[in-house]
């Protein structure tokens, strides 16, 4: 029985009380508040920057520069977005500026994502000419029957992580922001300067490929 689809995107959340507390501590020069944020977001910021610039070292540098931007701008933070969104926004602005300097200014939406292959390999479906053309040749597996400990094992997570790393940078950024970090679609569109429709295409391609990788892993050792 299909469940009803989730409702359309909620507006991006404003700063929480916890955010404002962290902001106050930062303004007071509290080192542990800064390191809390760094531990939480730095890796993710570097990965996001990686979608804009030419190599890992530059991405690391962009993230460092963004943190300095966060500190310099903290007095101007008003709480109209969450602190996290505000930090990520500084990162994407910093990364875009750097990409321009590198003469590598490519619109995010077109970064390496012109693959037109389907979500599922064409040979999983009955071919044209068949009475049931376009329907499953054999049904996909029911993963819900698999034991949770297998689904939630470290190896499963490694398979997913590696599948995301193989995606074009824009697809990787969208799936990490949406499905790993839990940003809403409105926030992701705003951060990456892409339309809702474009974001859904990128998310769809990303999720489809991660599902396929997961399928190869989960189904190979039955």
């Amino acid at each position, binding site marked *: *029985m*299909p469940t009803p*689809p*989730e*409702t*359309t*995107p909620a507006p991006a959340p404003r700063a929480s009380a916890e955010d404002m507390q962290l902001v106050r501590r930062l303004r007071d*020069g509290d*080192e542990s508040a*800064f*390191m809390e944020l*760094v*531990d939480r977001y*730095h*890796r*993710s910021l570097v990965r996001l920057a990686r979608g804009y610039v030419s190599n890992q070292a530059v991405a*690391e540098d962009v993230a*460092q520069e963004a*943190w*300095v931007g966060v*500190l*310099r701008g903290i007095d101007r933070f008003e709480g109209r977005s969450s602190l996290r969104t505000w930090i990520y926004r500084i990162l994407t602005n910093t990364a875009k500026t750097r990409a321009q300097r590198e003469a590598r200014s490519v619109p995010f939406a077109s970064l390496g994502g012109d693959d037109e292959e*389907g*979500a*599922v390999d*064409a040979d999983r*479906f009955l071919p044209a000419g068949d009475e049931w*053309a*376009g*329907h*499953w040749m054999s*049904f*996909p*597996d*029911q*993963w*819900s029957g698999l034991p949770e400990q297998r*689904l*939630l094992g470290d190896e*499963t*997570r490694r398979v*997913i*992580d590696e599948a*995301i790393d193989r995606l074009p940078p824009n697809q990787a950024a969208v*799936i990490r922001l949406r*499905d*790993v970090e*839990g940003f809403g*679609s409105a926030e992701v569109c705003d951060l990456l300067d892409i339309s*809702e*429709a474009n974001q*859904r295409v990128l*998310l*769809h391609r990303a*999720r*489809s490929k*991660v*599902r396929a990788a*997961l*399928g190869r892993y989960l189904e190979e050792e039955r």
Partner: protein
Amino acid sequence: MSEPDLTCRELVELVTDYLEGALDSTTRRRVDEHLAGCPGCTAYLDEMRVTIRLTGTLTERDLGAPVRDSLLHAFRGWRRGVT
């Protein structure tokens, strides 16, 4: 029925829009109707939901000491500048 039935191959391309609530009501109804009669696509949708749930369990590795040190250094520089 004016519209032809969706094929499974068409349906798998609509799954994300379906889960995002982005389909127009006619298309959403066609998807629901297809799902109601197709165990294959129902399983596929379930796989997609499991994929999303498992992707949400990824965690970050800890930052290495050199990166933390360098950021701490940047922080102290900033603090000296403002205080």
